[in-house]
């Protein structure tokens, strides 16, 4: 059972926070995607390319080109290699001589193709890197993302700001999509990595690295498999007791029938064992990118949920029925409020109409009235003070055009919601799509600008509440032991 050594960690630190990056083999056919992605990079960018026909394109981007990594006059902290696979061993040799902090191989065509040549080349670069203690990331991946310093996988990713969410993904697509979709939802990345075939550095190494990274408060992982299950289990158990870890396990149905002679053996199939590992370590299990985003968003923006009593507010009678059905079906409670709450609600529901058991049903005209914001605040406060309620959920419906269009009407309501969120119990907003994707998106964006990311359906919100309530319960049990 090996652990990440101090020297590996120091070098990985160099790679995650480089002052200089070299891209080997970027070319026109790729649209110079790597050099373009580094247009935001704060440090020095070098290109290494020996094909004369590529040189004008590289020069046009204003990047210095060298014929070899070893020709670069200053140290190189991080290398991105997009070379043909046959060249990979030569690049690894140069990286070792140059003593780089780390190298990511975008190059694919290794063991994942199950060809003799691919397997042999993968073994070669693995042996070379291990022997020399080189931080090889991948191959078949997009490597490191550090938005604060503008180190990116693609020019579509945000940069300039440091977030608090670390992301570790076997797949480059999921790493990239998580950051781009997450950004729109108020999720900002501290550091992220896609690690592909994991021949040298595996998810466990990155988990350890991000566990000790002060900028990272929450860790998300997309995993297809691990190299050393016991080591992963031991580290995850330690890390999850310090930082929330959300795990999306891909390929759960990978394993076929196994020869076994016991009931236990028949029942302990791989998917269930993974579920067990995640639960036993106190991490959170999700099953899709959407669930990953919802869960991380709730960890960031919704206060710890310490019970399952829901206080629901919907925008019409029909929606009230549906929201209650969905939350109840998910295993959450929708309790009656206290007598005192009903007395207080009666005082102003007489004026505005609607119904007030739980869910509370308010009409959209109510929000658009002159005193809409103060009525909303009163209603939210009643739920907030009710001892039967652990978490408050407010539906907003995009038919309320003023929320997106007219600042005069929208701002007081958004202010009221922001103020309430600060002082209240766990509070969550759902912007249902209703009839218009465009209006719903506009409204969601507006909320994100205010630091109140919303959830996009009753189902997604309910499942997120349920998942988080279970997580916080297990955290409480953990701290009692």
């Amino acid at each position, binding site marked *: 059972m090996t652990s990440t050594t101090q020297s590996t960690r120091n070098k990985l630190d160099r790679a995650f926070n480089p002052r200089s990056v070299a891209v080997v083999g970027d070319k026109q056919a790729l649209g110079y995607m790597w050099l373009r992605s580094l247009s935001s990079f704060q440090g020095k960018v070098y290109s290494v390319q020996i094909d004369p026909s590529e040189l004008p394109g590289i020069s046009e981007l204003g990047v210095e080109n060298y014929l070899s990594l070893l020709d670069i006059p200053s140290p190189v902290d991080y290398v991105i290699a997009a070379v043909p696979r046959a060249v990979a061993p030569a690049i690894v040799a140069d990286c070792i001589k140059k003593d780089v902090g780390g190298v990511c191989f975008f190059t694919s065509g290794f063991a994942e193709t199950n060809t003799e040549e691919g397997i042999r080349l993968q073994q070669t670069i693995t042996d070379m890197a291990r022997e020399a203690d080189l931080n090889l990331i991948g191959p078949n991946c997009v490597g490191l993302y550090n938005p604060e310093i503008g180190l990116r996988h693609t020019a579509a990713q945000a940069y300039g700001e440091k977030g608090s969410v670390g992301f570790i993904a076997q797949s480059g697509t999921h790493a990239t999509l998580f950051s781009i979709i997450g950004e729109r939802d108020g999720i900002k990345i501290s550091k992220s990595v896609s690690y592909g075939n994991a021949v040298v550095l595996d998810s466990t190494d990155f988990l350890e690295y991000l566990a000790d990274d002060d900028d990272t408060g929450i860790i998300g992982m997309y995993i297809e498999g691990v190299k050393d*299950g016991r080591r992963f289990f031991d580290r995850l158990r330690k890390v999850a007791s310090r930082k929330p870890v959300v795990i999306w396990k891909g390929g759960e149905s990978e394993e076929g029938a196994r020869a076994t002679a016991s*009931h*236990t053996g028949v029942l302990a199939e791989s998917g269930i*064992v993974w579920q*067990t590992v995640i639960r036993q370590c106190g991490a959170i299990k999700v099953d899709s990118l959407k669930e990953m985003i919802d869960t991380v968003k709730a960890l960031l923006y919704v206060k710890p949920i310490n019970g399952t009593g829901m206080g629901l507010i919907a925008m019409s009678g029909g929606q009230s029925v549906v929201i209650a059905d969905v939350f109840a079906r998910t295993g959450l409670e929708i309790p009656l409020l206290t007598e005192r709450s009903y007395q207080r609600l009666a005082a102003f529901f007489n004026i505005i109409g609607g119904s007030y058991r739980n869910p509370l049903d308010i009409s959209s005209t109510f929000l658009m009235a002159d005193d809409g914001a103060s009525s909303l605040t009163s209603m939210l406060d009643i739920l907030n003070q009710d001892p039967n309620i652990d978490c408050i959920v407010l539906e907003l419906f995009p038919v309320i055009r003023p929320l997106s269009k007219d600042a005069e009407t929208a701002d007081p309501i958004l202010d009221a919601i922001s103020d309430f969120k600060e002082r209240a119990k766990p509070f969550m907003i759902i912007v249902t799509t209703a009839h218009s994707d465009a209006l719903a998106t506009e409204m969601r964006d507006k909320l994100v600008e205010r630091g109140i990311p919303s959830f996009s359906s009753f189902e997604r919100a309910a499942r997120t509440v349920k998942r988080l309530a279970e997580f916080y319960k*297990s955290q409480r049990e953990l701290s009692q*032991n």
Partner: protein
Amino acid sequence: MPSKIISNALKSGRTVLTEVESKQLISGAGLPVIETKLAKTKSEAISVSKKMGFPVALKVVSPDIIHKSDSGGVKLGLGNAAQVGRAYTEVMAAAKKANPKAKVHGVSVQKMARPGVEVIMGMSKDDQFGPVLMFGLGGVFVEVLKDVAFRIVPLVRRDASQMIREIKGYPLLEGYRGQEPANITILEDMLLKLSDFIDKTPEIKELDINPILAYSDSAVAVDARVILETQI
């Protein structure tokens, strides 16, 4: 002692332990096991039964017969010497019919345990994560309902406590509709002892203890099956 049972079996080329051997192993691990004796002849079965007190159960003991009850190798609730004698003959005949080449050691005689909530504890090894313990409702329920929970070895108290409460049938353990409840602490202790034993005994590949009868003041393993690794 455990190592001797294991090494004897491996020496004779067996990876499947008999019920009697399996029970000796888990008893050695500190788990409560119902008193079980091997009887090699009919008269021995009768005298052992008398000493234990009726009613008793008889089961065929053969490394070559794994599914004992499917092949008629189990007789339960035998109330007197005559019934034990007849059962012995029937069990032996059934064993011969099920597998004419089976090597039969005799029968196990055990006292019938009083009814309780039936649970299962088991272990199997995952390729990536190693030994995994299972807990669930036992008897035939495990086959039909698959209401089970798992934990990776080694377990801590919290794991044992959570996995018991995780199964859907947990209310049955709490004493549903006036039934005798199961003592959860005793079950937790058993899981922890089993975890400890598995951790120290890498020779074991798979294990089922099924059923364990759980009572308000105790619990007892009634049947067990241990399968060994062919090589360590």
